[in-house]
């Protein structure tokens, strides 16, 4: 699909969708053992709830590091497509990481941000995106040229399809609602790491 067939949206016109639903739509498209790194906040809870693929990594504690971890995975295994899932609050804490990924031009990497405008897990205090920070504009400004707001669910799926087929790095931003996550991740960090390494074929 060419770029001009794609819809476009701004933060104001993008449909407010559901994080759990979008996560399930993403995961449903993964049939090549793609890696998915879920960031802190409710992001990794919904990744967990979407089915515990061995190629999922649930990042429990370090705000903003889903994208850097995904970037490390992508560099180590350039044949594997890698997705980082981040909340807006987390991403705002580590905006430099977007520039690092843009500078490296990491082709097998896509960052998906769930912008609910709040730090939902700590009591829904508003983040800077509620006051006008546009994460797609930020991403473009760091050099991530392929950065887009998903207009609606169908557009989100088109963007994921493109990320699976064409060279990245991709930055896909979504507006999401205030619904709670669909599950809760089991918090055993060493087990999460061990399973992930098996899922990536690094250990038996």
């Amino acid at each position, binding site marked *: 699909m060419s770029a001009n067939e794609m819809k476009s949206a701004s933060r104001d016109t993008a449909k407010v969708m559901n994080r759990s639903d979008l996560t399930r739509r993403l995961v449903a498209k993964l049939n090549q053992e793609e890696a998915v790194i879920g960031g802190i906040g409710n992001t990794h809870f919904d990744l967990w709830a979407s089915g515990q693929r061995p190629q999922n990594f649930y990042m429990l*504690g*370090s705000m903003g*590091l889903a994208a850097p*971890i*995904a970037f*490390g995975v992508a560099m*180590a295994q350039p044949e594997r497509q890698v997705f980082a899932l981040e909340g807006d609050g987390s991403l705002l804490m580590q905006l430099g990481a977007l520039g690092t990924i843009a500078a490296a031009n990491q082709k097998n990497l896509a960052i998906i941000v769930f912008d609910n405008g709040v730090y939902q897990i700590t009591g829904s205090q508003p983040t800077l995106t509620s006051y006008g920070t546009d994460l797609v504009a930020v991403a473009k400004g760091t050099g991530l040229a392929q950065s887009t707001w998903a207009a609606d669910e169908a557009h989100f799926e088109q963007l994921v399809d493109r990320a699976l087929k064409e060279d990245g790095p991709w930055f896909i931003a979504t507006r999401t609602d205030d619904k709670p996550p669909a599950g809760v991740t089991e918090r055993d960090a060493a087990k*999460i790491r061990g399973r992930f390494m098996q899922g*990536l*074929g690094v250990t038996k």
Partner: protein
Amino acid sequence: MSVANAARTPPEAWDAIVVQVLKENQVKLITYVPDKVLAPLIKRLHADDYFTVICPAREEEAVGIVTGAYMAGLRGIVLMQTSGFATLPNVLASLAVPCQIPLLMMISERGALGDFQLGQAIVCRTMRPVLATLGIEHYAITRTEDVEFIVDRMIKQAFATQAPAAIILSPLLTNTKKK
């Protein structure tokens, strides 16, 4: 090499030895936030095709990158100065330690032994207490003749025990103007 020749060869610089030991241990991914003392090492690493060298915006980011790379089968290291290390307790305590990541750190020790920069001096005092509290193996290298042994053994132990390791470069090693 004959003994006579060896005697005439100047001793290898610490940074050249580090490059060699990293290669011998297949540590290919280098991440760093710059430091003046590390500059000659960084220059050598950039010049060598064996290494992939990334300079992210923050040391925390570097820890994330090296962690991801390790889990996907690529060995890496984070190079930083003491001020950079002082930004890391959260990521060490929430990611590297609980996930049992053999995260290699090489820290140039600034602020010690007469360093006149106030910020560096006070920040430096936080490093060893943090490392000790988190139970992270650390060792300061003070002499060129120890570089190969300490760097090599600390890397091997980190991977064998699935634990982070902090290799500290003392000004006794890196300050060439000291004598």
